[in-house]
């Protein structure tokens, strides 16, 4: 009896803690085949577009309660490429992504904020090649026929993550700023 009484509050707490999770399920689904994570790097002033071919995302998001939303990404660093076999062979090497030691780049959101008009701001931690940085990503949502398209872009400093180390650290050759652009097709998001 006394054991039951003592464990009761703990059991209640656990049940309460589990509630929001249960309320959020089922989570939204990102359709990777209809989505894109791309980036633009400047090499000697030349903008060069690349993309990640392999990645996955988890999302739990209700436009009515954006503060409770979460999103996480896991990107295969070895799948980055500019579409030419020569450069694609370079990207996984130790000086760039070092895909052997750091096969995944991740993003984990920490806060979401509605800006109005289908625009949101997602803050979170971006981890690439063993370095983690806080980023704030603007996202615009558009909906049609049960599908939600999320688009956005943000800029990172490649040297924050030691992408292009050693002889490639020279930013006059390869600019420090790298623009990351994404277009996600998501199902299961409630109407805006």
């Amino acid at each position, binding site marked *: 009896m006394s054991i039951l009484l003592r464990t009761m509050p703990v059991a209640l707490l656990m049940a309460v803690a589990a509630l929001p999770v249960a309320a959020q399920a089922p989570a939204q689904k990102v359709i990777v085949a209809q989505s894109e994570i791309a980036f633009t790097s400047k090499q*000697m002033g030349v903008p060069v577009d690349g993309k990640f071919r392999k990645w996955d995302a988890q999302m739990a998001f209700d436009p009515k309660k954006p503060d409770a939303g979460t999103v996480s990404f896991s990107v295969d660093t070895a799948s980055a490429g500019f579409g*030419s076999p020569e450069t694609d062979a370079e990207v996984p090497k130790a000086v760039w992504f070092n895909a052997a030691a750091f096969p995944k780049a991740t993003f984990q959101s920490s806060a979401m904020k509605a800006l109005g008009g289908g625009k949101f701001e997602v803050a979170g931690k971006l981890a690439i090649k063993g370095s983690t940085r806080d980023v704030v990503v603007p996202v615009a949502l558009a909906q049609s026929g049960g599908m939600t398209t999320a688009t956005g872009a943000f800029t990172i400093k490649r040297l924050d993550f030691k992408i292009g180390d050693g002889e490639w650290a020279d930013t006059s050759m390869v600019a420090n700023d790298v623009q990351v652009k994404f277009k996600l097709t998501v199902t299961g998001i409630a109407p805006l």
Partner: protein
Amino acid sequence: MNSNAFKSPGQRYTGVAIAFHWLLALMIIGSFGVGWYMSDLPMSPTRLKLINWHKWAGVTILALSALRLLWRLTHRPPADLPAPRWQLRVAHLTHGALYALFFLVPLAGWAYSSAAGFPIVWFGVLPLPDFVSPDKPLADLMKERHAVLAWALGVLVVLHIAAALKHHVIDKDGLLDRMRPGR
């Protein structure tokens, strides 16, 4: 060698034509050498630099060749020196083919760069338009064309130099003086 006979106007190319000839000769030979050397280098900042310099030089050669062609069309070159008919014909054909390649080699290189997804930014400052969109098979085709045309240009340049030297060393007809810089 006595070249007084060739100093009178009309016997020499114009100063502008001579400047174009030698400037472009240096640029074309230099770009050919850089292009050949860089194509087998492993990726490095040096290689990236060479590739960009090569592209900037190529576009500059293209632009200067356009001006040169305009000059050539509006200014009469000196008359042919006496030579067998077939030699004159081969010389004219060679010159025509050289001019065609001054345009075709850089244009194929430009198309290769665009098709490979690397737009050209002239001297790192002026973005040039892509007249083809990124396309892997087209990039491979243009890479091959660029190389074949560049080698054809190389062969013609060697032929051109050999013929000029033949005039200078064997015929001793003072042909080189028509294109010699200075007075």
